[in-house]
């Protein structure tokens, strides 16, 4: 046995009169029931129509119906003035079905053979959300938010409300709202209108560590308050702003708190009203920005890059030493250095130091020696001079060879030579000579 898929209505199709494009026969009573999936409507477009024209399409006619209701009765030719022809205008069904009935009488004009019609149809998504509210008083399709999707629609509710089981209306329910986007908009249920009584809503804004939340209340702020001798109190209605490690702030009254920089990546807002009183509520935009790190400072004989005016979480700095200097940290030389601004506003590593490099002891020269000309302890830019033990050895080509401690920690001569010079023996030149005065 073989499983066959359920029959799914086509998304498009074609309808033609019998024997099209040959002339249609007389005495026809042909019907087509077109359908597309639920949530779609049918758009019918005539590519050609040539039906015997008559007043009111009395003899031959194509009738288009939706649920028994006639959407149009057509006959004639697109180029003729007789009959009732749809022209280039498509016919849109209100729903996902459409019925076409083609009727012909027993008599056709002798001189002109009409070929009938050819039409194409396709499924068009219905935007249920933009449909007018039904007149039966049942209310809008969705009580708060309507989202059109292909072939259907979905109802949704504002924060503080949740969708009822009828999938259409919303009920107040504002607990557990967590906002983790870097910016957003919050408002009390029903804002700017007063919500039902006894509201208890909690909003938690929680973003990644290393980011700081800033609340920006709109001017239209209204939470019932009581003025006492000690000032404004919020005994019945309030919005409590809780920031970790700080005392909670209770807000009420008619004056917007404006901007609140929390210096925290988590803020909890608890909105409470009792069963009496009137509060129109509040709304706010929140934004986040990265934590600041202090300027990293300077490195002697080195450079810290980049050097912006401020450093933020996840910013990196790099330290490079001047030529002839090396990076040192905790007494150890390091190849490179980078530090990141952490979520706690601290650099993850302290700055290293730049120490002058040294080339080490110069290679001893066999049958020669080395003399320091300038510099200190073989350090960068120190200059040494090799010499051979004269008169028994000599440098080939020169008397002395100077080497400088270069930034690559090598002793290099003026000719960029790294290897030590070589002392070549002097031959055949005794220091004492056989002389004879007597002749």
């Amino acid at each position, binding site marked *: 046995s073989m499983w066959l898929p359920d029959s799914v209505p086509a998304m498009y199709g074609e309808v033609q009169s019998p024997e099209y494009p040959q002339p249609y026969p007389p005495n026809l009573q042909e019907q087509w029931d077109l359908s597309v999936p639920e949530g779609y409507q049918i758009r019918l477009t005539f590519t050609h129509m040539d039906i015997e024209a008559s007043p009111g399409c009395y003899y031959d006619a194509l009738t288009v119906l939706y649920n028994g209701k006639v959407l149009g009765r057509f006959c004639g030719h697109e180029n003729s003035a007789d009959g009732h022809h749809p022209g280039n205008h498509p016919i849109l069904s209100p729903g996902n079905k459409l019925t076409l009935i083609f009727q012909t009488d027993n008599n056709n004009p002798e001189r002109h053979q009409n070929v009938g019609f050819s039409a194409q149809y396709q499924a068009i998504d219905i935007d249920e959300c933009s449909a007018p509210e039904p007149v039966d008083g049942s209310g809008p399709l969705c009580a708060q938010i309507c989202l059109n999707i292909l072939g259907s629609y979905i109802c949704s509710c504002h924060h503080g409300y949740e969708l009822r089981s009828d999938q259409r209306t919303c009920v107040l329910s504002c607990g557990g709202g967590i906002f983790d986007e870097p910016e957003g908009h919050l408002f009390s249920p029903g804002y700017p209108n007063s919500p039902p009584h006894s509201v208890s809503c909690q909003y938690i804004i929680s973003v990644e560590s290393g980011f700081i939340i800033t609340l920006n209340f709109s001017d239209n702020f209204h939470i019932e308050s009581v003025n006492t001798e000690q000032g404004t109190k919020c005994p019945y209605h309030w919005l409590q702003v809780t920031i970790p490690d700080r005392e909670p702030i209770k807000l009420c009254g008619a004056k917007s708190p404006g901007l609140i920089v929390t210096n925290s990546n988590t803020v909890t807002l608890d909105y409470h009203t009792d069963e009496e009183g009137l509060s129109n509520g509040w709304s706010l935009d929140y934004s986040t920005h990265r934590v600041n790190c202090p300027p990293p400072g300077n490195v002697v004989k080195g450079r810290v890059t980049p050097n912006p005016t401020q450093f933020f979480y996840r910013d990196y700095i790099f330290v490079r030493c001047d030529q002839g200097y090396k990076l040192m940290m905790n007494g150890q030389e390091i190849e490179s250095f980078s530090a990141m601004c952490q979520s706690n506003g601290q650099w993850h590593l302290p700055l290293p130091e730049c120490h002058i490099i040294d080339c080490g002891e110069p290679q001893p020269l066999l049958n020669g020696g080395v003399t320091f000309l300038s510099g200190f302890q073989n350090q960068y830019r120190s200059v040494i001079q090799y010499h051979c033990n004269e008169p028994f050895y000599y440098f080939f080509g020169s008397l002395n060879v100077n080497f400088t401690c270069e930034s690559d920690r090598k002793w290099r001569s003026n000719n960029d030579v790294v290897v030590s010079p070589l002392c070549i023996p002097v*031959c055949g030149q*005794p220091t004492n000579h*056989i002389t004879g005065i007597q002749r």
Partner: protein
Amino acid sequence: ITGGSEAPENTIPWQVLLTISAGRGGGMVIANRWIMTAAHVVVHNNLPVSSETVHIYMGLNDVKTLDHPTAYAASIHIHPNYTNTNNLDFNNDIALIKLKDPITFNASIMPICLPEERDTYLTGLIGLVSGYGLTKNNSRLFSTNKLNYVLLPVVEDNICAKSITSVKDAGKDVPNLTNNMFCAGRPEGGKDSCQGDSGGPYALSDHGRFWAAGIVSWGVGCGEKGRYGVYTRVANYVGWIKKTMQEN
């Protein structure tokens, strides 16, 4: 050295004294690890002597002050064409001794320069011959522990050849003179190298710089009238010397 003089200190710093078994020979320093000498000095009974038996002294002019060898031989390299089987063929009489340890040069030990390859020696040029070999006084040979030297001119090959022929004509067996040899000495005799000087230097000077023109090789008698000392012509062996040093 006959008819010569004792060398003042540091005047012939390339001079080497070789003692091999009971024999004594000369040599010359040519590099910090190499001594050049005559092949017949380091060949005994047609076999190369063992390098362990070669004692090498240098740096002083009095053998009595040399209590232990200055250097030790690591290997001996005799010229491959030296085939003196009957002691009458001194052609290619040249050898090199490689030292175990390099020498540091100073006023008393210094290498002698080598000639250009195929250098020619002008007749009449005065060369310096030195050694610890026999000396002569009133026709009597004496042994000496002092380094002696004598200045001898290069002799024309023909004259030398005639001298040797005359000896042959007298019925004596003497080696042949070849192109690898040259002669030095005075026709009147008296001044010459002698037994024990073999392997030592015959040095020519060029602008105050001495170079090894010859190696004391052989001769008929010592300092005899009409006889000349025969020396290995070093210029003919510069290629072999360099090759041997590079390969070893």
